[in-house]
Structures are given as structure tokens and as C-alpha cells.
């Protein structure tokens, strides 16, 4: 077990070192998110306060749409790093469980995406004047992000060698993540709306949050089982 976690830590630390030096993964995700928020602000007429309530209504959905799309950029970038110079071959012939490569990559991409989440929480709180910082909302954001990355790393590992990976990844990943995104977005919107009307309650979001947790666990099991076959093919 120690061997497994030592390999996981090695992969995570290596990804953090590269990101610390290049800042290419998180910065791309943040720039995309900023551009999208600004674009939607104009599109919704919020820039001139024509229809402020419209912006508020769609804010939770917009939050998740941005996280999903920005994470795709991060997934592609992070996994492509291991394919440059065929480094992945050296990882595959290392005497470590291949699932350690999967878990390590899930952890590092999750960390990058959670950093993006933190920035988005601040931006959405400021731009849309909604309490995205509430602990329950943050819990949903973390659980949703973890689940999305768990399945994202698996599917990106399948598509990363393809010349059309930029198209293939969202086409495969977004439908598969629908059972995660629906309850996550629903829980986010419901809790924020109830909090703004002073009626926030855990019971309102318990069912969708449990669905998100179930999805995370199920996909983690699928990922741990399927990853070795994915990388061997």
C-alpha cells in the first residue's frame, strides 16, 4: 500500500512542479472562465443592469457550465504533458500499479480544478451577488468537481492519443457526466435560492448531494478497474 501511495505522491508532486513552473493548466482554465463570465454578463444584459434577475437565475447553471468546459481544457493539457516525448511509456514500464498513475492524475487535476472553483466562487459571488461561498454550496462544488475529474481522467486517457481529442473529449465526457451535473447544479441552485430567501436547509439538497456522492464512488470504481485496460490499449 505504501508503494501505491508513494507512486501517487510522485505523480502529484511532478504535476505540481510542472504547473508551478509553467502555470499553463490553471491559467488557461482561468482565462477561459473569465472570458466566458464577461461574455455572459454582456449577453444577459447585466453590464447595464437591464435584467439583473435573469443573470441571477442562471448563475448556478452558468457556474457549472464553466467548470465543466474549463476542466476539459485542464484535462487535455494535463494528460497531454505525459504524452510529450512519450514520457507515458516510461511511466508504464515503471514498477508501480497502473492505478497509481490514474489516482495521481485524478488528484492533481482535481487540485487544479478546485483552484479554479475557488476563483469562480469569488467571481460569481461578486458578479452575480449570490452566496456561492456557503459551506453546503462549497461541498457540492467539491464533490461535483471530484466526480467530474474522476470520469474525465479516464475518458481523456482514451482520447488523448487521438488527433481529434479536443472534439472527442467533450463529445464523450459531457453525456457521461450528465448524471453528476444535473444533481450538482440542482443542489447548487436550490440551496443558493433558499439561502437568499432565508430558508436554507440541508434537507432541501440532501437527495441530490447523495446522488453526486454515489456517482463519485461508482465512477471511481469504474476508473480503478478500467484504467489499466485503457492504457494498455
Amino acid at each position, binding site marked *: 500500500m505504501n508503494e501505491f501511495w508513494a507512486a501517487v505522491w510522485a505523480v502529484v508532486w511532478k504535476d505540481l512542479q*510542472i504547473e508551478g513552473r509553467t502555470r499553463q493548466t490553471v491559467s488557461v482554465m482561468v482565462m477561459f472562465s473569465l472570458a466566458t463570465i464577461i461574455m455572459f454578463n454582456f449577453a444577459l444584459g447585466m453590464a447595464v443592469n437591464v435584467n439583473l434577475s435573469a443573470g441571477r437565475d442562471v448563475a448556478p447553471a452558468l457556474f457549472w457550465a464553466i467548470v465543466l468546459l474549463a476542466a476539459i481544457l485542464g484535462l487535455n493539457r494535463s494528460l497531454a*504533458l505525459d504524452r510529450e516525448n512519450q514520457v507515458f*511509456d*516510461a511511466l*508504464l514500464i*515503471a*514498477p508501480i500499479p497502473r492505478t497509481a498513475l490514474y489516482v495521481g492524475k485524478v488528484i492533481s487535476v482535481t487540485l487544479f480544478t478546485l483552484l479554479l472553483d475557488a476563483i469562480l466562487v469569488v467571481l460569481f459571488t461578486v458578479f452575480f451577488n449570490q452566496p456561492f461561498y456557503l459551506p453546503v454550496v462549497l461541498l457540492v462544488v467539491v464533490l461535483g468537481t471530484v466526480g467530474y475529474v474522476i470520469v474525465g481522467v479516464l475518458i481523456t486517457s482514451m482520447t488523448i492519443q487521438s488527433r481529434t481529442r479536443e472534439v472527442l473529449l467533450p463529445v464523450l465526457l459531457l453525456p457521461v457526466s450528465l448524471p453528476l451535473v444535473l444533481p450538482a447544479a440542482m443542489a447548487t441552485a436550490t440551496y443558493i435560492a433558499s439561502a437568499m430567501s432565508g430558508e436554507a436547509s440541508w434537507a432541501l439538497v440532501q437527495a441530490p448531494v447523495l446522488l453526486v456522492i454515489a456517482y463519485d464512488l461508482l465512477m471511481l470504481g469504474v476508473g480503478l478497474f478500467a484504467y489499466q485496460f485503457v492504457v*494498455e490499449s
Partner: protein
Amino acid sequence: MIRLNAVVKQYGLNPVLRGVDLAVEQGEFVTLVGPNGAGKSTLLSIIATLLRPSSGEVTVGGWRLPEQAARVRRHIGLVSHHSLLYRDLTAAENLAFFARLYRLDDADDRVAGALRQVGLLARQRDPVGTFSRGMIQRLTIARATLHEPDVLLLDEPYTGLDQEATALLDDLLRAETARGRTILMITHDLAHGLGLADRLAILYGGRIARETKRDDINPAAVYDLYTDVTMGE
């Protein structure tokens, strides 16, 4: 040390290897040559545990592949014309990462020793992306031998090297031979292939078409031998 018996590899209906028989003894240096598409890299990938043979028997150090691949991996090192290194990490960081994957004791000393051996200690803090092709290939040797493997697999290691870098690589490979490592090298360069090796094998038509010991052939005649085999005698 390496035994291949009737190894076949097919991609779909297309057979690349049609029954390869090859044995490399412990401490022996064997060079495998052959025209493009002969299946040399496929054969090396099978021995490196990166590919599964369609049929046939492969053993490395007495362990059967692919069943005992996990045991074999600690005993092999792979050098290819790709560096298998992260260009955004420094030379020392790259080696430290692989030292962690192989769980090497006294990793810092080993990394410093490996860098010293390939003449890159002074550049240990420079990112690999700033290195010349020759420096990268020397670092690649350091990576592949960091864990003291019994078997070193070389896939076109001379690709893109100038004369000085080629001479340095020759010296490094002679040093590895002197340490008693078993080496299997794939190359297009017949002169280098025969100059360093104990034995030359020609892969043609998906089979080992000819094998000869270095002492049994005049270096000047090796081109004629190769032409005879690949042009159908």
C-alpha cells in the same frame, strides 16, 4: 536473459511479427537491424512490457510476459529516440521523479551520481527543454539506468545525434556493457550496430532472418549481408 519463442504480433489482420525466435544471454549486447516496418520497435515494446504478443512465449530474466510483467519492469530500462523526459522539469527533477517511482534508496546520491556519469551535473537545475539533442540523450541514458536495470533496451538511440554526441553515446553504452548489463539495441546504423554489439540479428519479414556474431563477420561485409537478406539474396 531474454528469450523469445515463436512470437507473433498482429494489429487487426495485419501481422507485424510472424514468429520471432531470439535469445539474448546475460551480459550480451545484441543489435537488431531491419528495414522500416520490419517490426523492430514492436518487438522491443513487447519485451519492454508495453505491448502484449498475440501469441508465442516471451521471458525476461526467467519471468514470463505478459503474465509477470510487474516483476520484469524493475529489471528493464528503456532508451528510445524519444527522450521519455518532461521538458518542463529540470534534469535533476526528472531523475528524482523516476527515483521516486522506483522507490530507490539514497535517491539524491543516485541522481547526482547519474548526472555526473553522463556529464550533466553542472546543468542539473536547467529545464530539459533547454538541452541539446545530445544532452537529452545522455540524460535519457541516466534515466534508463538510474535503477540499475539488468536489461537495457535501446530503440534507435542515435537518431538526430551529431558526431560528438554519437561518440559520447558510444562511450556510455560501452560503460554499460562493461557493467555487465544485457543490452538489446535497435538501429538503422549498421556500423554502430556491429561496432558495439557481440551479435547482430536481422529482422525481416516478421522473423529473425539472419544472426551473426561480430567475430564471425568482417565489418566491411555487414552491408552485403544486410542487403542480401533484405533484398531477397
